[in-house]
């Protein structure tokens, strides 16, 4: 199981994350944040498709996405 | 403390003064008549563990100075008029960022390429800011080689005291003139910039040195802070009065010209003329109050400069409404002698 958290107030709706998402499950929502940008989301039913590659988090210029990956205790640290 | 006498040029005295003051970095670019300074520094500074860089331009040299002093060390650049024009960008940034750079200008003739002879044509540029924006430098105008040494040491102290760029305004006469000096070793405060310098944000919040103030009212506030600092600098005012007490005419002159005028005054005194010399040593802040005191006593004034009239405006502002100042401008392109000033002084005295 992985978890993706969007820090909506930081999102600028640039959609760069939608393109790099390995499973193409990130889409534009119909919500606006306080900055006035239309934020992105993953539909609840799509979340299980997420493989926690973290690419959306890596590409986001505004650090608006946090991706949690479940790992075995002994798995080496990702770099 | 070395009591040894040295026989050196003004340029060398400045370089020696900088070393004594603990200057750790020097950035320069060749231009006559100040080349002895970078040449001396390239030889001597590395021996003291400092860094000498011959920059690609005066623009770069002054910006290197900006960087070096932001790290809290004592550093200097020097040049002559056309090069000083190029340094104005960084000087303005240093003033805006409150950084203690020391800049030496061995003034030569202008405008443009002018000549390589002495001139005081850069008085306005030095004392009224010089670059863009509303700011001032502390400006020191040495008249002798010993004073060049002493004031260079003072320049570093003042720069750090006020976190403001300081300019030493000499000229081709001072730079090339050889005189005996007695060098002395000042005490250099350690860690004088500990509170503000950049050294990596370890165990404290990051520090930012900048001159950009965009938020509402921020720049106004910053300008006011600078203005307060300039007002405080008045404490540092220095000048020399020579035989002014009983004089009916005061000649106001600075730097090399002040020193040459002093010889003229001596000669004229021997002939019975009641003339004296007032020589501003800090050109900014300008010794206006002291001049005004003399003006109130009913004395006449003559300003002599090696240009067609710049400091005279500051003198006039200082002495009015009690007096007016006459003006004599020595043209660039030749070296004045004490004789050259006898006639204009007597003319002003008899007016």
């Amino acid at each position, binding site marked *: 199981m992985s978890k993706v958290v969007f820090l909506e107030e930081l999102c600028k709706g640039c959609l760069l994350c939608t393109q790099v998402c390995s499973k193409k499950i990130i889409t534009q929502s119909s919500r606006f944040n306080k900055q006035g940008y239309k934020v992105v989301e993953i539909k609840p039913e799509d979340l299980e498709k997420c493989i926690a590659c973290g690419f959306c988090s890596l590409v986001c210029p505004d650090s608006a996405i946090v991706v949690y990956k479940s790992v*075995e205790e002994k798995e080496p640290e990702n770099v | 403390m070395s009591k040894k006498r040295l026989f050196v040029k003004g340029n060398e005295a400045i370089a020696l003064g900088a070393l004594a003051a603990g200057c750790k970095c020097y950035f320069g670019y060749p231009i006559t008549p100040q080349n002895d300074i970078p040449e001396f520094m390239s030889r001597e500074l590395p021996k003291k563990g400092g860094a000498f860089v011959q920059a690609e331009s005066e623009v770069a040299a002054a910006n290197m100075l*900006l960087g070096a002093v932001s790290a809290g060390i004592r550093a200097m650049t020097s040049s002559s008029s056309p090069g000083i024009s190029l340094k104005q960008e960084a000087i303005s940034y240093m003033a805006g960022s409150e950084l203690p750079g020391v800049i030496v200008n061995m003034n030569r003739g202008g405008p443009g390429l002018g000549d390589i002879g002495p001139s005081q044509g850069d008085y306005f540029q030095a004392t009224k800011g010089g670059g863009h924006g509303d700011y001032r430098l502390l400006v020191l105008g040495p008249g002798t080689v010993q004073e060049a040494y002493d004031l260079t040491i003072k320049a570093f102290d003042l720069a750090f005291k006020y976190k403001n760029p300081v300019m030493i305004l000499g000229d081709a006469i001072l730079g090339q003139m050889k005189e005996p000096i007695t060098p002395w070793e000042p005490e250099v405060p350690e860690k004088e910039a500990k509170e503000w310098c950049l050294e990596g944000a370890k165990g404290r919040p*990051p520090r930012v040195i900048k001159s*950009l103030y965009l938020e509402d009212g921020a720049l106004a506030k910053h300008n006011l802070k600078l203005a307060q600092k300039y007002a405080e600098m008045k404490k540092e005012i220095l000048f020399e009065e020579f035989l002014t007490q009983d004089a009916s005419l005061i000649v106001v002159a600075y730097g090399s010209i002040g020193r040459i005028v002093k010889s003229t005054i001596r000669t004229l005194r021997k002939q019975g003329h009641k003339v004296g010399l007032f020589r501003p040593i800090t050109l900014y802040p300008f010794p206006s109050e002291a001049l005004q005191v003399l003006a109130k006593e009913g004395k006449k004034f003559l300003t002599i400069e090696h240009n067609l009239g710049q400091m005279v405006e500051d003198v006039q502002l200082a002495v009015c409404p009690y007096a007016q100042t006459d003006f004599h401008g020595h043209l660039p392109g030749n070296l004045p002698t004490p004789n050259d000033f006898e006639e204009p002084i007597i003319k002003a005295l008899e007016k």
Partner: protein
Amino acid sequence: MTEKIMFPKPQVLANRPTHYCPGCHHGLAHKLVAQVLEELKLPEKTICVGSIGCSVFIYNYLLLDTIEAPHGRAPAVATGVKRARPDKFVFTYQGDGDLAAIGLAEIMHCANRGERVSVVFVNNTIYGMTGGQMAPTTLVGQKTTTCPGGRCKDREGEPFKMAEIIGSLGGTAYAARTALNDIKNIQKTKKAIKLAFRAQLEDKGFGFVEILSSCPTNWKMTPLQANERIAKEMIPYFPLGEFKNTLGE
């Protein structure tokens, strides 16, 4: 089982929204710089030299001791900082107008002297901050507000290839060009930044990374179209790769 954050936000990157336009690559470039600084354990000994351009507020985002350099002069300012404190880590972050136009002399000489500083060069082929004027890196044919008919080779010359130029200088220890248009290139960019920083840390010489970046606003494109432009128009003219590497890696 535990939870691990993928590509966690570096501590040295501030927790605040940036002023950058949506999709602007400056934010991404900042993040990569921050990651490398942390991986090399540098933040506490770093002095950042900011430049004039859209990244002028870099000190709001990278929590580092920072000095603002006049337009184009960051390499001279960095030279001064490093000569004053050779024990510190010093880098500049500059745009293409800043570095390749007004600051061309400073960058060339800084590199040629082999100053032990590193330079992160964001090439977005345009003057972003001032509203999209022609830059020295604007591609031939590219329209900007000061070459509305497109950059003309005969009139305005061809774009400067800075990574190649810097790579050809004796003092340079590392010079590379990377891009931020896709994940692979983003990861390569991070590696290149690390090598440019290590060139300084290992006292090898001057380190330089040119990063092909987008300015969607002034290119009048969506961020996704901008990424395509990097791939289709910029990379063919500005080839990616290393132009100098004396680090032995």
